């Protein structure tokens, strides 16, 4: 058991008076212990993040080093990428590709994803150890000990820094091990820590402001999305907007190109400002509540709130709307730049080869199908977290009064599952229509809306398979259900890096998205969709049966 550690140093009043300083009971007392507590509690999560991100970098570097051997190889890569807006949105401006090195290619292929991943990780870590903690009774125990008012905030930021630095160190070692230059590798590690810490700071602020911890996480997630889009627009355009994005700053350090170390000042200043703001905001709010005041609710329930399904819808409604708005906006943006892909190919034979390899006709269609796959992978985040509501409802004990009513476990689980499955349809449809509308606007082709709506909807069976995997894990043992994220991560790696990493086909096939027809680039294929749906049903039934047989948590 993890005891709540209290500073063991006993300082008498006399000693304190003699020393003339009161450092031992500042508002940061106990920070050191809380950092250890946070790191210990998160040790598995930290290990998974480290394994995933360092592993991804190492494997990417290994395959790129093996793939691009001659200067011609390097030039060939650069020709397919430079100036291609569609790829720039995903990968960044491609610093260093005018005179391509292996390091520049590795950066172009992976840096953007690593930045997004550490941004999300850092928001989650800071909110988890500040606001989420306050919503349990644990934080009160800690605060009742001689622990300062700002200690939890400081500990969350320091803990997040430790994790970011550890991951960066791992990545630097991996890059150097594959023969990439030291300076560029360290620059990348530093830029990654910069992104992580700025978004840790964002999490620290949203934790003070938001009405609850879920809202704080959502606001932090939105901030990551906004940073990505600002940077994407900036990179495609004149570059100004990229300077409004912490992810833009990180790529502007130009690791493995002409490193500009001074840019590191930006994340350092921004993080400090955010932490100072968070500290000031914390002094203006009550423990356990945010600056946004909780308004009163209805004295009586509406007729919709009459069943387990009604409850599941009510609990997840806001989250689903948030995802729909966020992914819808991102999809619309992808649609708007779709025609840019076409313009590149006219004077670029390498690009033509590149897309010919993919076995598709139109570059625009290839871009749109890739964009839709990315949207679907993001939307799967909703699908899985929606099924994981079962876990939080069960572990918090909120499920007990529901199951003590005449509601079977199957009915309860099915209600959240229905939201997850239905929400997957809603999200892919929203993404498809939004992307189609954007594409229709710039191309003057109204058919895009229906075509891309279909491209979105074909993703649904694959998302349902992951819902089924999550349910089965939860049904067998609720503590295991977080492992569903590993499957999502794998689907992401297979989709984004599968080709580059030369992964064996059987490993790629483990991702359900690998079997989905890549509309609109590929032609429709019904059989894999039927197979995936059947697989999803089997997993769901198995999950419900397993849930029925075990003890409640």
């Amino acid at each position, binding site marked *: 058991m993890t005891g709540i550690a209290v500073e063991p140093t006993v300082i008498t009043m006399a000693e304190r008076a003699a020393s003339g300083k009161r450092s031992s009971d500042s508002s940061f007392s106990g920070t050191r212990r809380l950092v250890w507590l946070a790191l210990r509690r998160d040790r598995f999560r930290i290990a998974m993040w480290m394994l995933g991100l360092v592993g991804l970098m190492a494997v990417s570097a290994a395959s790129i080093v093996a793939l691009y051997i001659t200067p011609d190889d390097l030039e060939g890569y650069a020709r397919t990428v430079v100036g291609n807006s569609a790829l720039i949105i995903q990968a960044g401006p491609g610093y260093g590709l005018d005179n391509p090195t292996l390091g520049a290619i590795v950066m172009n292929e992976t840096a953007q994803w690593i930045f997004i991943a550490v941004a999300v990780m850092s928001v989650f870590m800071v909110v988890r150890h500040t606001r989420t903690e306050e*919503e349990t009774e644990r934080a009160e125990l800690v605060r009742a000990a001689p622990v300062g008012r700002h200690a939890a905030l400081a500990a969350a930021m320091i803990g997040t820094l430790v994790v970011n630095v550890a991951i960066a160190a791992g990545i630097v070692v991996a890059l150097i091990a594959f023969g990439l230059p030291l300076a560029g590798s360290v620059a990348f590690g530093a830029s990654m820590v910069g992104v992580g810490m700025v978004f840790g700071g964002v999490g620290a602020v949203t934790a003070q402001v938001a009405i*609850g911890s879920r809202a704080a996480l959502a606001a932090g997630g939105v901030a990551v999305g906004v940073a990505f889009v600002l940077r994407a627009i900036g990179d495609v355009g004149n570059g100004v907007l990229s300077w409004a994005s912490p992810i833009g700053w990180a790529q502007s350090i130009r690791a493995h190109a002409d490193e500009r170390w001074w840019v590191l000042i930006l994340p350092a200043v921004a993080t400090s400002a955010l932490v100072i703001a968070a500290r000031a905001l914390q002094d203006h709010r009550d423990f356990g*509540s945010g600056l946004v005041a*909780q*308004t*009163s*609710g*209805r*004295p*009586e*329930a*509406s*007729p919709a*709130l*009459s*069943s*387990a399904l*009604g*409850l599941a819808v*009510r*609990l997840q409604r806001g989250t689903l709307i948030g995802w729909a708005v966020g992914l819808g906006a991102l999809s619309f943006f992808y649609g708007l730049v779709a025609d840019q892909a076409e313009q590149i190919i006219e004077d670029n034979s390498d690009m033509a080869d590149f897309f010919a390899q993919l076995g598709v006709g139109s570059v625009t269609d290839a871009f749109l199908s890739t964009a839709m796959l990315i949207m679907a992978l993001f939307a799967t985040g909703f699908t899985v977290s929606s099924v994981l509501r079962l876990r939080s409802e069960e572990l*918090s*004990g*909120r499920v*007990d*009064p*529901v*199951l*003590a*009513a*005449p*509601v*079977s476990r199957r009915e309860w689980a099915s209600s959240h599952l229905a939201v997850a499955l239905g929400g997957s349809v809603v999200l892919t449809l929203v993404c498809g229509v939004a992307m189609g509308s954007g594409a229709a606007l710039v191309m003057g082709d109204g058919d895009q809306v229906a075509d891309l709506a279909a491209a979105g909807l074909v993703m649904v069976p694959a998302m349902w398979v992951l819902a089924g995997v999550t349910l089965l894990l939860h049904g067998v043992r609720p503590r295991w259900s977080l492992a569903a994220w590993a499957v999502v991560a794998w689907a992401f790696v297979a989709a984004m890096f599968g080709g580059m990493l030369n992964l064996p086909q059987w490993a790629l096939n483990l991702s359900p998205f690998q079997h989905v027809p890549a509309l609109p680039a590929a032609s429709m294929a019904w059989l894999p969709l039927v197979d995936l749906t059947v697989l999803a049903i089997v997993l769901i039934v198995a999950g419900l049966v397993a849930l029925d047989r075990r*003890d*409640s948590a």
Partner: protein
Amino acid sequence: MSSAITIEGLDKSFGSTRALDELDLDVRTGEVHGFLGPNGAGKTVTIRILLGLLRADSGTAALLGGDPWRDAVELHRRIAYVPGDVNLWPNLSGGETIDLLARLRDGGGRRRGQRAVDRTKRDDLIERLALDPTKKSRTYSKGNRQKVALIAGLSSDAELLLLDEPTSGLDPLMESVFQDCILDATREGRTVLLSSHILAEVEKLCDRVTIIRQGRAVQTGTLADMRHLTRTSITVSTDRPIVGLQDIVGIHDVAVDDGHVRFQVDSSSLDETIRHLSGFGIRSLVSQPPTLEELFLRHYGDELAAANGHGLDSEKVEP
């Protein structure tokens, strides 16, 4: 008299920890049954088995004539449950939560005829327990969260109430409102299983009591029965000095104090003792039946002693 709950030889282990060890429990229809025991004795595990949330390893449990695991959904139409540690959905108001839980019991409002009655009862309870139903649950204190669960449970038409330390967060005023509500419930013929630490509450409300310790029922019966098995404290003053008191079997802890003699006597020796005393000319006599607290302490006294480092417990069940 029929039984609402019959448990025989119930076992439940979590890994190597034995939570229930051959537990027996009999709750008769229409009674308020007190379920007493220290923290970790197995009270909550028992109630969670009765709710079908946990499955027993062996032994039998019958709830309103059904199997709590197999027939859970059917049985839950007839019971109401109030947990001791109430966790609510933070963004639902108290009123919404109460209505939701009531409608889940009604099966989504299928039994509309009943709803009107529940409604008055609900509003009445909200007023009596002084709950603001418009507040979001995230802003409720522990006591207020408990009120939400109590109102949802007590406003139902359940035949059987399973209450797991339902008043641990309530203030004394609300505690007395709760006791009134339970007395109302018994007048309506409902059965109550009340797990509690508040012995005064159990003494006031319960017809029968089961004391459980380390997963095993160590004593069960009416309070009168239990008192019969234990000692009564007596303070007496007499015209002539009392002699020979020590020779009576079942007299303990004799103390003489300013003309008064105090001692404890086993219930079985009470008659003999009083006859002996009357031979010395009784001037005044005060007799105090054992309180539940004394009964409780008697069963856990050895645990207290063990905690103090000189335990005599020889047949301790594995922890």
